[in-house]
């Protein structure tokens, strides 16, 4: 393979790997901009992946699978919302509980239903999302460089990939240009200001938490219905946490979140590509070292290269009217 086709293959794989990160990152963005810290992204994606695979298996419809995934994720989001908003509980504890509950529950129910060690049966056909070919992709393939780039990196992904792009656009526009977005931005910085302006703090935060649930639902469904063909226990593999890192990296903004998630996806793709490859001077790099690359880079990037990332001021703080 020549350098170009390797690059294109890596980029293509980077796009695929960054999509669940992007969904989770946008989910975290909505939640945290409203003032609710969400470390339960991982758990919500996991239940969504399971519910999507189970529903798709039962109905042979990928779309019903997505619906089920979104429903399960929103249900978990509401639990987090109830604890964090209505009960003014500790948001970190609630998020950890969501993650543990999701990990345990999916394995338990999966084993009880399918007796395949927590897996769902493999999905195929209409139960999975198939790649869509963008118009003109085949015709463009002949054009040097740009052609394969369009045909392989941009085209031939599942509809959920384009959905993630659309979600980024919608998030950016909604936050910046709509009344709802202004209120969300305000409630994450100073809920008292929103309250005294006659707007319900709880309603805004619930709305944001539900949006986070929906986005995590798509992310989870993508894992089990598009990237893989079925559910595997623990298949989120820390993506919810990497998404949180990307969120900080992007300083809680939508388009930078897209960039950050693509960067992390690309790193992941490169690390897969490097397995078993002998590098000049270094020699054969151990698989474990390569797999650790994205995480190591996350630490390095977060430690020194992004400058001060200031979270929304009220994030993590339950809103209590002062006496």
């Amino acid at each position, binding site marked *: 393979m020549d350098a170009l086709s390797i690059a294109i293959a890596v980029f293509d794989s980077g796009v695929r790997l960054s999509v669940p990160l992007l969904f989770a990152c946008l989910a975290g963005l909505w939640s945290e901009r409203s003032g609710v810290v969400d470390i339960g992204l991982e758990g919500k994606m996991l239940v969504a992946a399971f519910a999507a695979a189970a529903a798709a298996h039962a109905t042979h419809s990928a779309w019903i699978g997505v619906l089920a995934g979104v429903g399960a994720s929103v249900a978990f989001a509401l639990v987090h919302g109830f604890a964090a908003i209505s009960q003014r509980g500790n948001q970190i504890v609630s998020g950890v509980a969501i993650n543990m509950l999701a990990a345990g529950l999916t394995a338990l129910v999966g084993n009880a239903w399918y007796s395949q060690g927590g897996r769902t049966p493999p999905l195929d056909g209409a139960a999975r999302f198939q790649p869509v070919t963008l118009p003109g992709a085949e015709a463009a393939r002949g054009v040097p460089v740009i052609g394969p780039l369009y045909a392989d990196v941009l085209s031939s992904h599942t509809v959920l990939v384009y959905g993630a792009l659309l979600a980024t656009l919608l998030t950016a526009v909604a936050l*910046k*240009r*709509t*009344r*709802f*977005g*202004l*209120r969300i*931005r*305000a409630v994450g*910085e*100073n809920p*008292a*200001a*929103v*309250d*005294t*302006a*006659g*707007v319900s703090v709880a309603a805004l935060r619930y709305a944001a938490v539900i949006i986070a649930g929906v986005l995590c639902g798509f992310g989870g469904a993508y894992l089990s219905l598009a990237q893989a063909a079925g559910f595997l226990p623990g298949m989120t593999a820390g993506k919810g946490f990497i998404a949180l890192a990307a969120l900080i990296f992007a300083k809680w903004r939508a388009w930078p979140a897209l960039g950050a998630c693509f960067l992390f996806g690309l790193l992941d793709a490169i690390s897969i590509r490097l397995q078993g490859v002998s590098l000049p001077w270094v020699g054969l790099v151990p698989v474990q070292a390569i797999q650790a690359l994205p995480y190591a880079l996350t630490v390095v990037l977060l430690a020194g290269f992004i400058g001060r990332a200031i979270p929304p*001021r009220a994030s993590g703080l339950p809103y209590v*009217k002062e*006496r």
Partner: protein
Amino acid sequence: MTERVSPGRTEPGGRRWYSIAAPTDQRDDDPRMTATPALAIELVGIHKRFGEVHANKGVDLAVRRGSIHGIVGENGAGKSTLMSILYGFYEADSGEIRVNGAARRVRSPGEAIAAGIGMVHQHFMLVEPLSVTDNVMLGAEGGPRLAHGARQVRAKLAALARDYGLTLDPDAVVGDLPVGLRQRVEIVKALVRGADVLVLDEPTAVLTPEEADGLFRLLRILADEGKTVILITHKLREIMAITDRVSVMRRGEMVATLDTAATSPAQLAELMVGRRVLLRVEKNEARPGAPALVVENLVVRDAQGTARVDGVSLQVRAGEIVGVAGIAGNGQSELLEAIAGMRPIAAGSIALDGAPLGAAERDPAQLRRLGLLHVPEDRLRTGLVPSFEACESAMLGFQDEQRYGAGALLDRGAIVAHTLAEMEAYDVRPRAPLLKTAKFSGGNQQKIVLAREIERGPKVLLVGQPTRGVDIGAIEFIHRRLIALRDAGVAILLVSVELEEITALSDRIVVMCGGRITGERLPDRTDERDLGLLMAGVSDRAA
């Protein structure tokens, strides 16, 4: 006394059209007042309980349209609770709110806004990273898309700038604005929402005297336009200077409503406290001795490297009180903390009793042993531990002393007994050493801190904001204690944002602005205007 907006005077803009002549009030005969109800706001029999505390006990209040109505009372008298009920923050247990003569339920700020009530909170309700426009339209965006609302808000901002001189840059980020302008944003927020009644809670706490005068001129113009202003304050000077009528609250009850012209600060103070109060601190001439605290060219930098204290030199002699005046945030806090050993110093020297302090001595514990004691500005953050029992807060920093027990174990009995003795001496109420510190009122918490520090026999006492959030009765007590301490030969460095306190207590006044000393004055040879100019950084004319 400072000037009062006198009844006969024509205000800027010549819009005065009613008389506020006090004793014979003829406003009810004014034809303009019969057209619409003369009372903009009526509160009738308002009761509100928070658990044990009966914050409002059957409060009645009637506020005339187009007037500036002051509400005074000590901390905890129930003023803020009453206004929070009017603004829908709390719902009253019983009672009625009437707006323009008609009973209305006001159960949320949204309903208050709909009823034409706007509020400027003491702690601004602003979103700092957002622009002025975003802040003003928050909650009143006029549609799901922002662009339309933003255009309207800009037009309204321009109109307010034209009509009232309320100039604001619509694109400025609120977090970058000085406090005076932030307050302006709050006022504009209320006006843009069509408020007819404007409630201001302690609006001048953060302003320079000049800014406060500007605010008062604005309030007068608004009142002349027919808007109604309710001003909550504990500063009697402001009540006398600006209000038409004044209501006094004490312990949850409304004790009097008077025409301002027919009352005096002494009468109001008496009504607030329920007994006669000395507004001026009685003190003898100071007899200063040798310099006890000498600070030379002190520079203190913050974490970003900005000089918060920029070459300050001052000395405090035994038996005198030196007051540091200034608007909050001009380096006074950092100065105090640096002298107390809580902050590193970047340059300069500090000497105690003629002996320069080395780095090893500039440590809070060591300084205390040397006789430099400190009543910190923020008693809840640095002076006390709110969740501790009072007796534990009363020994903080001195827990190693013999009297609290020997060796590793503390002697509970001795601690409680000692705290009780301090509580007796400083009249801390209730005398309950085992009660949580947070349960005491601000004044009593402050007395606990003062007792702890003063009982150690200081040579130099640093005092920051000794009466912030403290009621008049306790202020009097604290002031008398500080004077007695001065007379006993202690050198006292007092930092306060209350000019009245500085002028009443100090034997010398230094004024800080931007980390530098902009002037030094004797309290009997200066006035508020003079100090205000120095506080605003207008350099010393005497130089």
